[in-house]
Structure formats: structure tokens, C-alpha cells
């Protein structure tokens, strides 16, 4: 299809712009600012997370669909999470459901899909050489990576990961005495989610800026491909709603660790009436679903 002359022209053209010094392995593949490399990093992390997320769901669906099934063969991996009768420990069942939801919604759909395709396609389809800020883009991935490490690590701690449902409604998630999964696992969940939100905001700002400012000559908004329109709107919605989730998580961290009563009121638990009054668990639900309704869409 292509002729020799066209090929050599491309080479000459490319050579003109090759001003970069050769990049080290670290800069090229690990701490890369290149949108395609970052897209691949998101893709690989997303695939990793979807394997984890799906295998968690397979475990609890086996238990749910076949209540009498012996799951002892999972004991080498899960240890005491499989109880003496060969069934999933009830606490672990809730942990599985919770982590499956968290992983699929945030780490696979939001980061894995949106991170991969927005990063890969936006510069290509609007005709930009790269994202508006390669550095922010790199930070975005590495914040996501840190969030991933914490969330993954929480699967291996003794009290287990967060297990109050992926919506982590307080007071259950706010009171360590209410639930095993509301101990260290919940703290790790919240810190991981805070880092995750930072990553999403850095990414979102970049997507929006690139689409608005770096379109090639003649690429007006009305000629913008529909995929880009979708990425742009997704990024704007994310930018509006992720900070709200961050505030929900922060208030929950305060309630858990600093004795505030944003979500707690008139609670009697484990033989003790807590002093907290005046808070509202419903506040958390409003803040949470401000994000989550649009995440579903």
C-alpha cells in the first residue's frame, strides 16, 4: 500500500523531531511520561485487578450457588478463611463481596478501562503529540499504583480487608468493635481510596485540558470523535464528583480515628453506649452516591 517515497518522507519527518536524548530503561518503561506507555501500564494493572476481582467473585458464588459444597481445596490459599466445615467463614464472605465490588468498580472499570482508553486514544484522536502534562499523567498512574499496593496488601492482613460492602456505610465501617473488617482493613481501604481519588483527579484534569487545548488544526468540537466526547464528559463528571467521595472518606477517617461524630449518633454497641450524638449515617450515603450514581452510568 505505502510507497517507498512515502516511507522515506515519514522517516525524514520523524528524524526532524527526534530531539530527545535516548531514555533510560526506567524513564522509558517505568516512570514514563509517554501516554501510550502509561496507557499500557493502566491496561496491565487493570488486567491484574480484573483477575483478582473475578476470582474473588468465583469464590463467593461457589459458596452461594452450592451451599453444601466442600471448599477445602481452597485452604492452601485461604487458610483459616475456610472454616472446619469446609465453608467460607462468614466474615470472609462479606470481605469477598466487598473487595469484589471495590475492585471491579474502582480499580477495573474506572482505572483499568477509563485509564487505558482515555490515555491511549485522546492524544491520537484529537491529533495531539501527547497529553497536556506528561508529568501529571505519570503521577496519576503512580498514585493509582500506590492505591493498588495498599488495597492489595489489605487482602493479606490478619483481620482481613474491608468487609462492610463496597459502599462501606458507617456506622458499620466506622466502628472497629462492630466488625472485623472495620479494623485495619478499613483504614487501608480509606487511605487507598484517597490516593485513588488523587490519581483520578490528576488524570481527569489532564484529559480535559488535552481535549480542550491540544486539538489539532481544524479539529473543532463538532468534529470531535464521539469516543473523545465520551472521555471528556466522563472526565468532567469525575472531576466534579470524586472530591465529594474524598470528603466522605475524610469525614469517615475523622470519625474512625479522631473521635468526631459526623456519621455517628446514639449508638450502643458491645455493652457500651457511645458518647457520639448528632451525626447522621445518611450524610455519608448522600456524599457516597453523589459519586457512585454517575460511576454506575
Amino acid at each position, binding site marked *: 500500500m505505502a510507497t517507498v517515497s512515502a516511507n522515506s518522507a515519514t522517516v525524514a519527518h520523524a528524524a526532524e523531531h527526534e530531539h530527545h536524548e535516548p531514555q533510560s530503561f526506567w524513564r522509558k518503561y517505568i516512570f514514563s511520561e509517554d501516554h501510550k506507555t502509561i496507557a499500557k501500564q493502566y491496561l496491565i494493572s487493570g488486567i491484574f485487578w480484573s483477575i483478582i476481582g473475578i476470582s474473588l467473585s468465583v469464590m463467593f458464588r461457589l459458596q452461594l450457588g452450592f451451599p453444601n459444597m466442600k471448599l477445602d481445596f481452597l485452604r492452601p490459599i485461604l487458610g483459616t478463611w475456610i472454616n472446619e466445615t469446609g465453608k467460607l467463614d*462468614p*466474615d470472609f464472605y*462479606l470481605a469477598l*463481596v466487598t473487595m469484589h465490588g471495590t475492585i471491579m468498580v474502582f480499580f477495573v472499570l474506572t482505572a483499568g478501562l477509563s485509564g487505558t482508553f482515555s490515555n491511549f486514544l485522546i492524544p491520537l484522536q484529537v491529533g495531539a503529540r501527547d497529553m497536556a502534562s506528561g508529568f501529571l499523567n505519570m503521577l496519576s498512574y503512580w498514585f493509582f499504583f500506590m492505591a493498588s499496593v495498599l488495597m492489595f496488601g489489605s487482602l493479606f492482613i490478619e483481620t482481613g480487608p474491608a468487609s*462492610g*460492602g463496597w459502599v462501606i*456505610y458507617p*456506622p*458499620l465501617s466506622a*466502628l472497629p468493635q*462492630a*466488625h*472485623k473488617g472495620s479494623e485495619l482493613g478499613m483504614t487501608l481501604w480509606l487511605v487507598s481510596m484517597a490516593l485513588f481519588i488523587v490519581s483520578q483527579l490528576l488524570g481527569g484534569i489532564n484529559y480535559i485540558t488535552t481535549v480542550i487545548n491540544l486539538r489539532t488544526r481544524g479539529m473543532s468540537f463538532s468534529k470531535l470523535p464521539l469516543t473523545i466526547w465520551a472521555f471528556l464528559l466522563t472526565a468532567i463528571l469525575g472531576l466534579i464528583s470524586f472530591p465529594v467521595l474524598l470528603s466522605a472518606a475524610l469525614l469517615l477517617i475523622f470519625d474512625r480515628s479522631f473521635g468526631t461524630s459526623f456519621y*455517628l*449518633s*446514639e*449508638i*450502643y*454497641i458491645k*455493652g457500651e*453506649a457511645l458518647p457520639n*450524638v*448528632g*451525626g*447522621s*449515617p*445518611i450524610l455519608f450515603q448522600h456524599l457516597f452516591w453523589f459519586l457512585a450514581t454517575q460511576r454506575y452510568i
Partner: protein
Amino acid sequence: MVYIVALLAVIFLGLAAVVVSRMATVVKNASGPVEEGRIGMSNRINGLLMVVFFVTGLIGAIWSFLHAKQFFLPEASTPHGRHTDFLFWLGMSIITIAFVVTNALLFFFAWRYQHREGYKAAYYPENHKLELIWTVIPAVVMALLVFTGWKAWRDIMAEAPENAQVFEIVGKQFNWIARYPGVDNNKLGSFNYKLIDNNNETGIDYTDEASFDDFVSTSELHIPVNKPILLKIRARDVLHSVFIPHLRVKMDAVPGMPTRFQFTADKTTDEMKNITGNPNFTYEIACTEVCGQGHFSMRIRLVVEDEASWLAWCKEQKPLLTSTPELASRIPANLKAKAAKYLPADATAAPADSVTASILPKG
């Protein structure tokens, strides 16, 4: 109901026919220069597979629905439940018909209008009349659905009638506690979460004389049939949710924020035994908000019976004050006399614990 569904089906089919005929004319008008055969058998196979996929999917969906039908709940035992069920199935029918028709067209078109030698796609940018039709009809249908739904919600959430029989249900990890207003004054006493302990699991406030005849149960909630019921809902520790599937009742129990649900059950437990053909049938109140380790087993039995036997049952129950005379120490001195008839003779003589009684704010 069937007529509405049928009417909507006709409208949607009509719409679909309009689209099909439009597309057919468009395709007929567009014929361009013939190109040599670039596209082989695979195109035709893929087109056919589209239709196969749709038909298999449809058959699978119908089979799965019919198979699952045996697990569906029986007809609701409350008037509001039957109404919400009607709205559910109405919405479901409209959505299903629209879904099947649009998807049938999607997959059928992929097969019907596959690439053919000598055909060329036409540029057909807009048709205002068509766009108007497919915007206005769904908009009107959606508006009607939203309006009827809003009306149903307003009726269900309305204030309970004056003569409603009041009960209280309190959620804790991991069981429900039912509190009855007692047969003497039929009024629930006030409560305070700081009063909760092993003797007084719902935090009943004994500075309120309406509390004296209240009794509690962790195994059963008995309610009269065909009488408006007002269920007051509380949670002690974390979120729980009152779920009575057969009555289509569902309301969250929130610590620090009492909620309520009013309904009228019109089928007794015994009638349900006949209807379901299950001699062991019982209504169940479950918890439907993840509340921790024991969430899956958190439930209490609901007994719906005629008013006379309900009242008789209530009269057999002992007020909490009678079964737990230690609570007498919480009664302020001026009400001791009124409480005396619920207490064994020696308990009234016990010294009043004035400290507990005086620090308590009204619940």
C-alpha cells in the same frame, strides 16, 4: 394491565415498522458502482451469527424467567404491595418490549443489510418527524411511569391513620427486638439509647408511665390482620433494614434516626399456609442491609392473626417490668404507685435509684 401492555406493544411495533420501511426505501434508493468481490463468505456467516445470537439469547432469557418463576414471592399480602407489584410489572413490560424490539432490529439489520455487491450506503443525515416520534413517545411513557411511581410513593409514605396500631422494632447485631405498647394503655413509652443494658435491650425509659406495660420479644412480632399498622423502626448499633418480603415492606433502621413504615396486612399466617400449600409457612422479617458477621441469619418471625386472637395473645404476655423487676429502681418516686400493679410485692419496696432516674433526658 394486560391491555395496557398490549397497547404499548402495538405502539412500539408500529414505531418499529415505520423505522423499517424508512430504512428500506433509503437502502433501495442507494445503489452505486459495482465493486469486485472483496468480501467473502465470512461476512455472510457473521451476519447470520448476529441473528443466531439474538434468537438463542431470547430463548435463554425466556427459559430462565420461566424456570425462576417457582421461586417468585406469592401475591403480596398488603394492598400497597399489590400496587407496587403492578407498577413493577408495568414498568418491566414496557422496558422488556422496548428492549426486545430494538435489539431484534439491531441484530436483524446487521444480517439483512450486510454488504452486498452493487449496494452502497446512503447518506441520510436527518428526519425531524422520525426523531420527534421516537423522542416524544418514550418521553410521555417515562413521564407517566414517573408520575404513577411518585403517587404510589406519596401514598405509602403518608402519615399513618389515627387508629393505627403502633409497634416498635429495634435492630441490633444480630437480631430484631419487637416492642409492644402493652394492653393497658396501648401506648409506647419513650426510650433513650443510654438506658440500654442486658435487662433493658431497647432502652425503655421508665420515667415515662406509658412504658410500664410495654413488653418485648426477640422471637415473634404478632400483628392483627386488616388493621392499619404503624411500625416504628430503630437501630441500636449499625445500619439494619426491616424487610418483610411477603408484605413488600422495606425500610432502613438507622442509629440516631428513627424511621417508620405503615401498612395493612390482609392475609393471616393461616391463610398463607393454605395459599402457598405449605403447612410450615411463616412470615419473616429479615435484615437486608449488611450489618456484620451474623447478618445472614438476622430475622424474626411475623405472625399475622385476627384481632381477637392477637389481643388474647397480647394479654398473655408479661410486661418487661414484671419479668425484670430490677427495672423498678428506675421508676421515679412519684410514679411508683402507678407501677406497683406490674411488680411483685417485694420489688416496690426496693430503694429508688434516684441517680439513674434523674440524669435521663426525655428520649
